[in-house]
């Protein structure tokens, strides 16, 4: 395998894993914070227990999902230094928004977890909302990169004028549709994850809350997904063509099929209450996210930045400054697999053996 392909594949895989993890954490974060607040306002003890249980998932997932963000950054700077140098110029402000959000998000999760029952619920709920909202402002920054390499606006302004205004990338309709799609997907996946966690504890109310989030935001994704697809036709024809008529058509077809199956299961789940195996909606919803992101990242190949019907080949951004030692790269990839195994063990102990219950229930 060529170094260039390893770079593109490595970046793609890191993006896919990262997106899968953060989709879960964003959604679960919001559901937890909102439920905790409602529990405080209504003095609902069982709802508070539900919020605590679901939050375990976020505590375990967040840092590990963040690691993959760092991996993406190193892949970008190491394998694609030109793209990184360009992005840190034209997308300086969006990247800064993401950076500040990360700085708020991580400590607020730790603080929210360890201060439960130790500070006033009102303050605790406020920390929860800060934690949840900062989860959504991270992709508000980072999705600008994806939007730019799919349908450049800030880069276009930079090429035309020699500079790009701070928030130029937010004038793109592609960005807003992609961002909304991301947020709705996170809330939907988060809902299904919460329903699954609640089913392990036989918490019917928790299952109901999770299923509602899952179903409603799955439905909300339908028009957004459609508009996003249409926006590609207008602003990123190469990707539209590849997805609609080219090599990624089977992926699109599979995604639509899986989404339809998920929709049916989600509708049944709402009415069937505890009669459903709730791991299936989780798996299917993550599969939908995976397939969507696979199209979003892979359909641009062999281009990195799409310019209508063509693009800038990814080799234009590659690192030619050194001969990348591929042995080191493969060793790193092997150790990353090890880290996934260790993380899976932690997840198993948290979710199935329910070890992370610091609080008396």
């Amino acid at each position, binding site marked *: 395998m060529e170094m260039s392909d390893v770079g593109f594949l490595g970046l793609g895989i890191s993006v896919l894993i990262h997106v899968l993890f953060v989709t879960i954490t964003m959604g679960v974060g919001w559901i937890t914070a909102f439920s905790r607040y409602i529990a405080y306002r209504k003095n609902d003890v069982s709802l508070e227990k539900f919020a605590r249980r679901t939050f375990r998932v976020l505590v375990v997932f967040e840092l590990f999902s963040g690691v993959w963000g760092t991996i993406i950054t190193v892949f970008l700077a190491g394998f694609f230094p030109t793209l990184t140098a360009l992005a840190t110029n034209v997308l300086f402000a969006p990247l800064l928004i993401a950076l500040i959000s990360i700085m708020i998000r991580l400590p607020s999760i730790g603080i929210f977890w360890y201060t439960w029952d130790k500070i006033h619920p009102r303050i605790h709920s406020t920390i929860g909302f800060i934690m949840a909202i900062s989860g959504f402002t991270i992709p508000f920054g980072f999705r600008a990169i994806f939007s730019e390499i799919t349908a450049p606006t800030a880069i276009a302004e930079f090429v035309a004028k020699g500079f790009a205004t701070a928030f130029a990338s937010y004038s793109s309709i592609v960005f807003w549709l992609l961002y909304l799609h991301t947020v709705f997907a996170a809330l939907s996946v988060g809902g299904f994850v919460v329903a699954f966690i609640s089913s392990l504890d036989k918490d019917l109310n928790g299952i109901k809350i999770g299923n509602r989030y899952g179903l409603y935001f799955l439905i909300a994704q339908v028009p957004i997904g459609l508009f996003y697809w249409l926006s590609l036709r207008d602003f990123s024809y190469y990707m539209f063509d590849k997805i609609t008529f080219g090599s990624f058509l089977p992926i699109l077809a599979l995604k639509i099929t899986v989404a339809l199956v998920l929709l049916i299961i989600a509708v049944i789940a709402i009415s069937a209450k505890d009669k459903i195996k709730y791991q299936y909606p989780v798996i299917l919803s993550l599969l939908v996210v995976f397939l969507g992101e696979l199209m979003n990242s892979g359909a641009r190949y062999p281009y990195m930045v799409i310019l209508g019907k063509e693009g800038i080949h990814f080799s234009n951004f590659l690192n030619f400054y050194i001969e990348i030692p591929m042995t080191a790269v493969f060793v790193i990839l092997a150790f990353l697999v090890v880290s996934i195994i260790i*993380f899976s063990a932690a997840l198993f102990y948290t979710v199935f053996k329910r070890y992370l219950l610091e609080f008396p229930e």
Partner: protein
Amino acid sequence: MEVGSLLVLSAIGVYFHAIFVSITLGVPILIMMLLLKYNKTGDQDYLKAAKLMTAVLAVNFALGAITGTLVEFGLVQAWPGTILAIASFAFVPLALELIAFANEIALLVLFIVTLGRIKPMTSFVILALYWIFAVFSGVLITAVNSWLIAPWGTGGIAKALYPFMPEFGPMSTDLEKIVALKIIAITSGLPLQAIIQNPGVAEKVGLILLDPFVAFTSPLAIVSILHNIFAAFLVGTSIVLVFYAFRYYFSKEERHLKVLKITAGVTFILFLIQPTVFGHFMGESVANYNPTKFAMMENAVKTHYNPIVAFLAYGDPSKPILGFDEFEKSCNLLGTTKVGDLAKLAGLTKDELSLIAKEIGAPLDPRKLDVVWNTEVRQLCYSDLEKAMKRITTVHASYYTKISFGILGFVSAIALFLHFKSSSISNIVKRVLGEKAIVVLSLLIFLGSVIPSVFGWYVREVGRKPWTVYGLLYPEELVTVVGYARTTEFAAFMIFVVSLIAIFGIFAMYLIAKRYER
């Protein structure tokens, strides 16, 4: 190009990161000791203390990770010229750091989730593995930082411009390309980002580094790694020490004393090794590889004799401490050599340079190129020495403040350790310091580890100015092209945000530590 405010912002980011990383590296040592004690005695106090420290470690780790992200992004966003180094000299260390970071987090999560639920020795092993990866992470990041201080693999490039400098290892770089990029950057007046962001430029420039592992072979890197990592252990453990000293003083509870004794023992051992052995080797390396920094540390405006310092730095008390007057004499050796003459030695003509600049999307103004081409190198040499000299007073004062507090901490660590071990020493300590002896000594140990670290890092970073990559690149060449990011207002805003988050985070750790046991 104004870079002062961004330098301040970067320094604050690095300092906050250093605080949290120190706790990340130091506290696990104590948790491991507590788990061993718990396993041996079955005393629940040790397990409770281990759990409390784990809770603090968890929040601290999050703060370390975000400040690490800040530093990482700060590097590529505020100083995007460093992307060239990340893609070459720093590629292998930073790529390997991914192994460390990913496994560190996975193991920490596993440790937190399973602590108290599985056998203590299994928890011990999980935490030990976490700690090994955390240390490995520190090793790799320090290796990258050390490359900025002694750019190993660039051979005699810096020496050609500044004859008083040493050679930095073998010539593993493509001299012609490095010289071309440097002259293009100087002539265009643009930061490197303006050049390296152009699509296709990397392919046109091609290989600039022949040995991607060269950063690991630097003698300064090896010494720096030991010095920095052990300093971090010391800071982390001394923070815990002072916390428990106060808790014990106010509560007089035996359980706090138990933890205090363990922490005092660890701190004592670290104090025996860190400043004496690794600190000494670090000083020697600075004298060898950063002559201007060493002169700044010793306030050597003029060359002078100091047998003690000379013995410690060079192993020869009769050797003079080279000062800036001697460096200026070295600059004279360059005679009337011009930038163009050096470029020709590297195999470049003016026409070739213009052509390269055009190809990589940074066309040069011929008149400006003439000016740079005909600039005498010794003028550059004098000018940079003058810039370095401006910082001599602060670097010198910082260095000796560091040394003074280090000695204070060293003596206090011995006194506290013996206070717990020997009743006769304990009586003497109590007679001198009274009932507050433990608190006072712990506080002095804390100051004796934190202040030397703070000032030590200041000397390390400011002492290598006016360069960011010693002898090769200035901050102005690495800074972002984004205008508003270089303003004071932007830096002030970011400093406010970073400080707010860090202070809130530290307060949260304190709150957790205070309330966790309730």
